[in-house]
Every structure is written in C-alpha cells, then in structure tokens.
C-alpha cells in the first residue's frame, strides 16, 4: 500500500495511492508539486505519515524521515532532468549502476526497447524532442526499480500513459491539467485546491460526478448558479430552485430543506439551445445571445445571465439565424451541491 498523509503549512492531504495511475489535478499554486516533493523527500512535512509500498518513509510521530535516496520513490520534475552531458544510454547506465555489468547492459537494452528509444540511445537529450525526453526520463527512473513513481506536470502523451502501467506495477502519481487525458488513461483522480483534496476517486466517476462546488469549478464546469430551494415535492420527484434570474426544476433533492441555499451546476455541453419560437418546456429559459466564440470543434455560446452552452459547429450553423433564443437545462444533467 502506498499512502500519503501530509500536513504542513500550506498542505493538508490524505491521499491513498493504489497501483496504477493516480492523476493529480488542480489550479496553479494548489500544492501539487509541493505534495510530490514532500512524498519524494525533498520538502519536509510537519506531521503525517508516508508509506511507500508498505514501507514507512516518513512518520512525524516516531520521527522517521528517510532521505530521498532511500525512499525508492522516483521523481520526475516538471522540467527536463536528463543529465544533458550524457547520452540517453549513459543516463540509463548511470541510474543502473547498482547492477552487475552484464545485467546492467541487458536491462538498459530492454528498457530502451520498451520505451521505443532504440534509435536515440547515442543522442544527447538536447537532440531529441521533449516527448521522447520524458520517455527517457521514465525509463531511467524505472531502471532503479522504484516502489512509486512521481511525475510532475510534463504533458505526457496518451500512448505513454497507456504503456506505463504495464512497465511498472506500483503507484504512479501524475500531475496533469489535462482532464481528457485523466479520463482516458488514469485509473484514479484527485482534485487539489489550496493544499486540500477536494474530491478523489475513480477518474471517470470523479470527472462525471463532481460532489462539491469546488470540484465542479476545478473540473471546468462553466455554469454554476447559486439558488434557493423554494419547493420540494417527493411525491412528484421534483424540486423547484430559484436562481437569480430564472427558476429551475430538478429531481427531488434528498436531505435538503425548503429555503436551503444551494448551487446548481451544469456542463456547457449539456445545455441545449433552441429557437425562441419553439414551445417552452421544463427548464426552458428565454435568453439573448450577446457572444459566440468559435472553438476547433465547437462553438461556445455565452447567453445573458451567465449561461454558457457549447454546440457542435453543424448544430450552430443550423441555428445561427435564430431571431430569439431559449436555453434548456435538462433536469437529469443538473447537479446540485
């Protein structure tokens, strides 16, 4: 088991790290790099306990604090750390110095092949592209047979992340801002804000079902509206929420009372857009469209009252001549915190 319970001035984190990739996402200054440095042993913690593969490497209570070189926790920083005066092969050989000569050559060869670096072995790091440098760094880190792998924000590609769990079966903590990549390649996701874990769990589940306003904000949900519960009807499985400039109907909100202040969230891509002439249905809100911004695959529509919708280009092309607009918030897509 790998587990980090870390407390220091700007950090209060309790994070289990199961085998496989755990992505760590959060805004700049949330403490992602600091957390990695504390786990690796480069920054001190005031309290807590860090276990790497069942071995205690830090325990404030019993004053255990192993130095970084004895934690067996390979750290790949946000900037290139391949030694620039050594070729890719020399970098790997340097990390594999504890193996006997023949074994070292064999392992380095295998690792270079596994990470598709065979054609770059005699090149200096400056002469290969950044994506391959990251591959070489990971290969070098794995030469030491670490118990955990910490990768700071380096923008790894999807194929590398898919290959990584087969090459290394320990815990991998990966800092990234790319939620699409988390969804595709990470097994777990932790959202960090102001040094605290806002939400953690299976990556897909966390991205699809934020549990708090902070998590929704970190996941980039564009529509967040403060609201007051004005009616609760368990019989009809309905709740009525009054936002600043419109009223929404959602499924019945268990555990809430009439008059509670809540926050309603809906993703921009879940908001439906209709012509103003269409007959209004549940959660149809007439609105004006002051701004539309073109994106590579979609068009972002910014309506009045802070409502944002995202439409595929073809769909926007069909509707762009609407004289008036109404947006629809499908009740099933609404999340209430």
């Amino acid at each position, binding site marked *: 088991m790998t587990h980090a319970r870390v407390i220091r001035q700007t950090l209060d984190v309790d994070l289990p790290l199961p085998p496989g990739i755990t992505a760590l996402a959060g805004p700049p200054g949330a403490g992602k790099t600091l957390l990695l*440095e504390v786990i*690796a*042993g*480069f920054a001190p913690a005031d309290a807590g306990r860090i276990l790497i593969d069942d071995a205690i490497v830090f325990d404030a209570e019993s004053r255990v604090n192993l*130095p*970084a*070189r*004895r*934690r*067996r*926790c*390979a*750290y*790949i*920083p946000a*900037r290139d*750390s391949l*030694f*620039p*005066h050594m070729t890719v092969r020399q970098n790997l050989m*340097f*990390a594999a*110095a*504890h193996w006997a000569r023949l074994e070292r050559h064999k392992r380095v060869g295998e690792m270079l092949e596994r990470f598709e670096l065979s054609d770059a072995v005699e090149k200096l790091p400056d002469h290969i592209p950044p994506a391959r440098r990251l591959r070489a*760094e990971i290969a*070098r*880190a794995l*030469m*030491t047979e*670490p118990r955990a792998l*910490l990768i700071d924000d380096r923008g790894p590609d999807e194929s590398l992340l898919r290959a990584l769990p087969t090459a290394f079966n320990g815990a991998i903590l990966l800092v990234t801002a790319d939620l699409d990549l988390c969804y595709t390649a990470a097994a777990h996701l932790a959202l960090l804000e102001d040094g605290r874990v806002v939400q953690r769990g299976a990556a897909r589940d966390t991205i699809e079902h934020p549990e708090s306003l902070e998590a929704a904000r970190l996941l980039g949900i564009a529509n967040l509206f403060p609201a007051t519960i004005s009616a609760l009807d368990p019989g009809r499985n309905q709740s009525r929420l009054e936002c600043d400039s419109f009223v929404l109907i959602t499924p019945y909100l268990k555990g809430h009372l009439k008059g509670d202040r809540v926050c309603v969230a809906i993703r921009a891509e879940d908001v439906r857009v209709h012509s103003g002439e269409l007959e209004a249905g549940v959660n149809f809100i007439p609105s004006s469209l002051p701004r539309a911004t073109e994106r590579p695959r979609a068009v972002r529509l910014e309506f009045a009252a802070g409502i944002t919708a995202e439409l595929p280009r073809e769909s926007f092309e069909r509707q762009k001549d609407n004289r008036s607009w109404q947006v629809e918030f499908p009740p099933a897509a609404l999340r209430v915190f």
Partner: protein
Amino acid sequence: MPLNYGPLWLTLRVAGIATAGALLPGLWLAYLLATRARKPLFAILALLLATPVVILASLLLRPGFHWSAGAAAGALAALPLIALGLRTPLETLDRAYGNPARSLGISEFRIFCRVMLPLGWRPVLAASAIAFARVFAEWTIVASL
C-alpha cells in the same frame, strides 16, 4: 635596465597554489551550502569573506615567513569566495538535476562528481578566477607586512 620578474612569479605562484588549495574544499562547502542550507556554515564563510586579508595574514604569518605560509593564508582568503560564489549556481543545478538523481538512489558523492562538476565547470572556473584575482591583488599587502 633588466626587469625583475621575481616578485611577479612569486605572486603568481602564491595565488595559483592558494586557489588550487582552496578549490576542492571550497567546492565541497559550496555543495553543502547548496544542498543542505547550513546557516552556521554560511555565517562563518561570510565572516571570513568580510575579514580583510591583512587581518588574516597578520593573524597567521610571522615576520620573515616562507611563501608557502603566505599561500596558506591566501587559500583561507580564497575559500569563502569559491564556496559562496558557487553556492547559487550549484543550488540551481541541484534543483534541476540533483533531486531527481537523489530519488534514483544515487549517492551524494556520485551526484557531486558525475553530475554537478561536469555541469557546473563554468561557474567553478569563474569562481576560481575571482579567488585567484583576490589573492593575486592582495598578496602585495601581505608581503609588505
């Protein structure tokens, strides 16, 4: 009139030997400062740097001293220049390459010899040149004591 090169050679010899003698301990002290941030060590070196060579020399040397004793005094003067001058470049290198290397289980000595020295030779050269210049310039004062 024939030129007297004797004092020049003597000064070059003293400055060269003093710099060479201060280089290795200075490098190791700089590495310690860069990697472990030892405040007392920094304070001692800063104090040594602030002390004029005349004072150092008058503490260490007696009238009619041998030039090698002067070189030893020069090494003491060069030491803080090398250690403090190299601290920042080595700190930068340590953050970039030292920490990842440490996480791979590599010993401090190997990191120092195989990573820091090959990557930091330019600052080492610059700090040595400044130390050499200081000893070279101030040897005259020491010699005149």
